[in-house]
């Protein structure tokens, strides 16, 4: 073996080691979360730390599920995320179609107006949005949680870009055949932009699922708490039981992580092509 080959080999091995080390560092918090959630209480305060639950126990899970209604949190998060995704996709499809296919007065103005909402984050609007919601009587309701995210400029933008790139002859042909505009949108356009819709839906879903600032502002009662809000309030600064806290976060995160692992290729491709998350 020549010297050059030896050094190339060591390079490769070092690279492998660094990838694996970094990978372990990234995963370590989740590993420790799971280990802790199965660890018997007295093992949590011993030194050196026990790297494996010995013996494993379900005690913390029992305690966590008694302390907080995680099924309810899941249900709320699912309701919010699904309505959010559905309405953003539907409204985005309609508006995207209009911007891509029609020419109408003030078209450019309206498009820029819609895109401008991307520049003003919820952090800025939340102050008076809260006052508006309280005037509507929507504080502490599902409507209140959903209202600011019922439409998404991001969805409109990507729908428009996609529909614009499609051959216009398709739409013309359908029109000559006498199809109404709504029918064209739902039976001809929608199936063709399925994959883009799936990408947008996925990003909207992850964002809605993890959204915290607006839900924590607008939700007061336990029965409406979404997962992030529920978990944040599960952590009680004055009475910390790390075992049940880690059991709670395991319950809150692991199902999503499993779903993600199945969809990983699709998720990564979607985020790489759209770039942004809103």
């Amino acid at each position, binding site marked *: 073996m020549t010297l050059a080959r030896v050094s190339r080999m060591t390079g490769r091995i070092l690279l492998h080691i660094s990838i694996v080390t970094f990978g372990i560092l*990234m995963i370590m918090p989740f590993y420790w979360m799971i280990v802790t959630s199965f660890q018997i209480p007295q093992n949590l305060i011993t030194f050196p730390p026990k790297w494996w639950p010995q013996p494993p126990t379900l005690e913390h899970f029992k305690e966590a599920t008694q302390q907080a209604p995680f099924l309810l949190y899941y249900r709320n998060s699912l309701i919010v995320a699904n309505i959010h995704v559905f309405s953003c996709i539907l409204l985005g499809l309609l508006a995207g179609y209009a911007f891509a296919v029609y020419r109408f007065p003030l*078209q450019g103005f309206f498009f820029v107006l*819609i895109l401008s909402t991307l520049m003003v984050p919820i952090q800025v*609007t939340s*102050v*008076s949005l809260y006052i508006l919601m309280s005037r509507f009587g929507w504080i502490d309701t599902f409507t209140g949680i959903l209202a600011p995210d019922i*439409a998404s400029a991001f969805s409109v933008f990507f729908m428009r870009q996609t529909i614009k790139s499609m051959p216009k002859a398709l739409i013309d042909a359908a029109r000559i055949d006498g199809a109404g505009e709504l029918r064209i949108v739902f039976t001809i356009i929608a199936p063709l932009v399925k994959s883009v819709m799936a990408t947008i839906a996925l990003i909207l879903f992850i964002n809605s699922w993890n959204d915290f600032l607006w839900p924590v502002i607008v939700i007061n009662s336990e029965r409406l708490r979404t997962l992030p809000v529920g978990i944040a309030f599960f952590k009680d600064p004055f009475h910390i039981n790390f075992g049940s806290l880690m059991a709670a976060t395991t319950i809150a995160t692991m199902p999503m992580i499993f779903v993600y692992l199945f969809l990983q290729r699709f998720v*990564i491709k979607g985020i790489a092509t759209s770039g942004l998350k809103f």
Partner: protein
Amino acid sequence: MKNWLIMAKKQRWHNAYLFIAPVLIALGLFRIYPAIQTLVFSFFKVNIVSRKYTWVALKNFSLLLEDLTFRRALSNTFVYAFYIVLMSALIALVLSSLFSSKMKLGDVYKAAYFVPFITSTVAAAVVWSYLYDPRFGLFNMILKLVGLPGRGWIASSRDAMLSVIIFSIWKTLGYNMVIFLAGLQNIPDMYYEAATIDGAGPLTIFFRLTVPLLAPTIVFVVIYNTILALKVFDQVFVLTSGGPAKASTTVVLELYEMAFLHYRFGYAASMAFVFFIMILVVTVIQYAISSKWEVQY
């Protein structure tokens, strides 16, 4: 025939407005109107219970100038943004160019780097609040194992901001890597082949080839991370609540507490105004730079 065309055109106008109306109404009512109102509120003293709005001109802003906590929040936010952009983007750039040049990154590794990003910030921060615990947390246990003194982490005003920063680097690294890897895939292999034939070493290739060709992606990642970092809230809320003694408070956390804990909406609105200007400046810079840095392969 001509008549029919005009009719059809008219009808489609009508359709177009119907199609964009729901989006316009929703965004107009829940995004644009509150945004403008927040800017207006920053010149008022707002009493949310009696719905009394008292014009106070620039008083909120002059208070803001003297507000030491808000100054602390501003400087914390900038320090945070600086380190996140520098560290997260830099580590991601180095790692992803290492990965893509030599081997295909397996799905298992991809999952390892990306799972923190798709997990909810709140849940992940709760896990880290345990890791950071001075007495029973894993970090201090490991420090003790290797014979180093433990740190205060989130419990000490000196380490609180550092703890939030380390958490956020971990959280955003995977996203930045995905973007960089996508950017790297667009660079044709022949450039690398040519450079290797010319005898360029890996460092030369990285600085003279990868970095310049990846410039638009780097600009995007820097801007995107800056905006995201300026908005930092979830992890601060969970890890430190801005403490101890406001040591790790940030602009959005101050804004949140002022409005929704102290009900000083006018004052919070003036913070939102300042925050909006910060975002606006970064966005304008983005447009200015990204139009200049287009790369054609």
